[in-house]
């Protein structure tokens, strides 16, 4: 995280100067066209070739303003460009369409300088007006853009204005530590193609997957070539792309990327094994072990990129809105006791989970921050070893006792029994719940695993609150604590254990609220980390979520695919698609 540290120090100390983060990139000017291009530092490749990548579902839209599903985002990320980009390997921000930016002394004003002479993939020149148009669209409440929430800081939308032909100023209402990261993956839209439909109020309906390629343009390395419903979507090289290699050849190297729509993970593995696809994303640990065995005889390689940002956890229904007479409300008298939750946590065999569920390709967790965020994880959080004896002591001091048959009973003599809800389509989480069930049996607790269809799991957690305990996974997104605001703030939409709290139900939740808000307006990264460390300590002590394990990011690619550098951040594989090329023997 050295880069991260140095960047933030620069922001703090040299806020009036240009922030230069070009350790890997530098600016180049194409003498013929006056384009300010970016030089990639990747190994030199050669042009040509096509790769096939599988998608688990068809993209619902190619419109970056309304896209929400993973498949749409994956395709859109190849077609669109952003102003400031988070490097997927270093996890720090770096210049993209903005060649540089300044931060004002108070951290409220961001001045971005746009690269000159760039063109959209249809050849239309890029101007400041396109940037202004894009932010107008994202912030327009009537458009219902999925990105709008992120651009509202301290309750007020980001203000922006044009300074000159290549400068835009963004004004924040309060200091926001993760402000630069907001620009990542926020596509700059072509005003000349979308203004009409925006004015007519039809923006959300434009750019469906079936749109003609002439009507879509972006600033990404690839542009739309062909879409065949139910089968595939093909992108072709964007001849106007704004990156070049060290030999001054315009990127991307590849001519085409075809996204093949496959119905499930098994189909993806089978097609990858058969050589029909060149890259496979999000491989499960079981499938990884199958592919690993085939590596020697097949022309592909699988990569274990290390811990991902996904954290799986067990949590109890602590919702305060339940009617007091309901069965769940009665069980909440156990769930609300910190000692009870701590005892459960102590009884869980996290190493067993990592070994059985993920074949060892996972990290046992005691805090929801995974080792993937190496800067943010609080390494001082204790990792208490599994201990049934200590768990029993904790239960005893919390007023629980055991019947003659060894069943745990509460003060009133009622047996402690509850159900653990999981998603039936997620084998890993069902397996985790089954392991926990067996672990809790040793405490005399009878837990029942209830695998349900995923939507009904979400419905019960977020709408009806009709569940007792559940195993869920969150994460992905970004390493920055900003991405977790929704989970830890008591008013957050993903505050899973108590959704829709109007005010913090406990003093430690109030403290988390305060710390999370404070870290977001603190610009010094070290000071921020101290605040976030405290949040992790509170969570590790009070256990609103009992962290279990974080699976490793597992991917695969054909041997012939060069410059392939998988990352823990999304999208794990194609984030540097412009640099990918097929080594000589593997040209298709």
């Amino acid at each position, binding site marked *: 995280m050295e880069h991260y540290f140095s960047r933030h120090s620069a922001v703090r100390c040299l806020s009036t100067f240009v922030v230069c983060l070009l350790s890997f990139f530098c600016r180049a000017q194409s003498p013929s066209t006056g384009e300010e291009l970016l030089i990639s530092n990747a190994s030199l490749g050669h042009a040509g070739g096509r790769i096939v990548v599988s998608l688990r579902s068809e993209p619902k839209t190619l419109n970056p303003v309304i896209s929400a599903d993973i498949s749409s985002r994956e395709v859109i990320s190849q077609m669109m460009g952003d102003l400031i980009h988070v490097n997927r390997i270093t996890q720090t921000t770096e210049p993209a369409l903005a060649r540089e930016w300044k931060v004002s002394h108070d951290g409220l004003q961001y001045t971005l300088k746009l690269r000159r002479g760039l063109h959209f993939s249809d050849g239309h020149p890029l101007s400041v007006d396109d940037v202004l148009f894009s932010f107008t669209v994202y912030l327009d409440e009537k458009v219902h853009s999925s990105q709008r929430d992120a651009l509202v800081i301290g309750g007020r939308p980001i203000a922006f204005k044009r300074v000159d032909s290549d400068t835009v100023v963004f004004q924040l209402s309060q200091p926001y530590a993760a402000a630069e990261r907001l620009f990542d993956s926020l596509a700059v839209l072509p005003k000349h193609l979308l203004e009409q439909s925006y004015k007519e109020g039809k923006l959300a309906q434009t750019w469906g997957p079936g749109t003609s390629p002439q009507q879509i343009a972006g600033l990404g390395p690839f542009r739309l070539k062909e879409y065949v419903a139910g089968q595939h979507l093909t992108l072709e090289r964007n001849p106007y792309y704004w990156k070049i290699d060290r030999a001054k050849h315009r990127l991307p190297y590849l001519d085409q990327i075809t996204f093949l729509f496959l119905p499930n993970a098994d189909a993806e593995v089978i097609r990858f094994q058969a050589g029909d696809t060149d890259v496979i994303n999000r491989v499960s640990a079981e499938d990884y072990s199958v592919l690993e065995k085939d590596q020697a005889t097949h022309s592909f390689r699988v990569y274990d990129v290390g811990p991902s940002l996904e954290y799986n956890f067990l949590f109890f229904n602590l919702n305060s809105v339940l009617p007091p007479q309901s069965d769940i409300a009665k069980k909440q008298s156990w769930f609300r006791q910190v000692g009870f939750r701590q005892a459960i946590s102590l009884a869980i065999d996290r190493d067993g989970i990592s070994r059985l569920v993920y074949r060892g390709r996972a990290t046992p967790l005691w805090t929801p921050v995974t080792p993937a965020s190496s800067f943010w994880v609080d390494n001082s959080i204790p990792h208490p070893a599994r201990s049934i004896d200590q768990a029993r002591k904790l239960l005893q001091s919390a007023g629980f006792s055991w019947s003659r048959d060894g069943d745990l009973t509460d003060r009133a003599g009622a047996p402690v029994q509850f159900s653990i809800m999981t998603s*039936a389509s997620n084998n890993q989480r069902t*397996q985790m719940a089954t392991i926990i069930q067996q672990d809790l049996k040793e405490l005399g607790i009878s837990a*029942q695993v209830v695998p349900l269809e995923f939507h009904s799991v979400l419905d019960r957690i977020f709408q009806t609150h009709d569940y007792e305990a559940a195993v869920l996974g969150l994460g992905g997104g970004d390493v920055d604590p900003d991405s977790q605001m929704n989970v830890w703030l008591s008013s957050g939409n993903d505050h899973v254990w108590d959704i829709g709290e109007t005010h913090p139900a406990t003093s430690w939740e109030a403290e988390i609220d305060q710390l999370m808000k404070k870290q977001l307006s603190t610009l010094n990264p070290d000071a921020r980390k101290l605040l976030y460390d405290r949040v992790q300590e509170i969570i590790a002590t009070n256990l609103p979520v009992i962290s279990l394990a974080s699976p490793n990011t597992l991917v695969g690619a054909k041997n012939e695919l060069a410059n392939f550098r998988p990352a823990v951040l999304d999208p794990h594989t194609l984030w540097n698609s412009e640099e990918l090329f097929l080594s000589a023997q593997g040209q298709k």
Partner: protein
Amino acid sequence: MKCGKQTTLLLAALGVLHVAILLAGFFSPYDPAQQNRDLPFTPPTRIHFVDAQSHVHIDPLVCAFQDRPDAPGEYFENRTRCVPIHFLVRGTPYKLIGSLHSNFHLFGVDAPAKIVLMGTDAYGRDVFSRFLYGGQVSLFAGLLATLLTLVFGTLLGTLAGYYGGWFDAVIMRGSELFMALPWLYLLLALRAFLPLSVSTGESFLLLIAVIGLVGWARPARMIRSVVLSSRERHYVLAARLFGASDLYLIRRHILQDIYSIGLTQAALLIPQYVLAEVMLSFLGLGVGEPTPSWGNMLSVLHQYAVLVSYWWMLMPGLLLVPVFLGYSLLASYLHPGRAAERA
């Protein structure tokens, strides 16, 4: 009909299997829910009569499995750590036929060695023990649901066929409606309405009720057609002329005709319903973990990695083939035509 030697053998095997399932606690060496987290997905234990020093043993030996240091998750048999199999040993306590406490097992080995005749699953549980215990759920759910279907189907089919008229029309249209309904989606909806925690006993009864009640339409239609021809037979007409009551006619004459058809139907429905349990386990309507059933044991096979990596996980499925074959042989043995031949 003279029963062929093979048929007798198969039926005998079917009988033995049912006894083994009924007395699962005695025949299985381990508790079906007992996890062994150091040994997930171990292949079936091999049984040896010759040890590493080439000494011949009368008592069969089993050798310990160890993790291969070069390939985690794979095992090799350590021939230097072998123990004899003991018969009629004391082990994990269990209840025989739901009530009799015992801890005698047909066979076992001294801990820490393990004897897993059909390998272990993802949690290191003994697949053989789970197969026997799982049979208790699946076969008895199949048997009870068949009984329920036949009672329900016979009742409605007989009434429809015997009385005819609007009664017949209502029941037959009802049966058509039942057959046309998209059951898969209805069952999913049903799961959403059920309380979240359903105990194993409750879910077992639910399973029987769902399987049994959904399937009544086909047997009812078949029985109705038999009753339709039966009631026009001369001896039935004659009995009616002599003043026999409806109840007498149905009991004395009509049910006689239905009897063999019912038996054949039962032998066909049982395997069908065991498979229905497999499907319901997929939908989360079956019995939950850790209770084994053939349905939830087979449902792990929909994971590609399990299917291609651990062949022994297919064994419960393969064992079901002779079980179902046995039932269809039984069906053909009980078939009305054959029954007449036997007479």
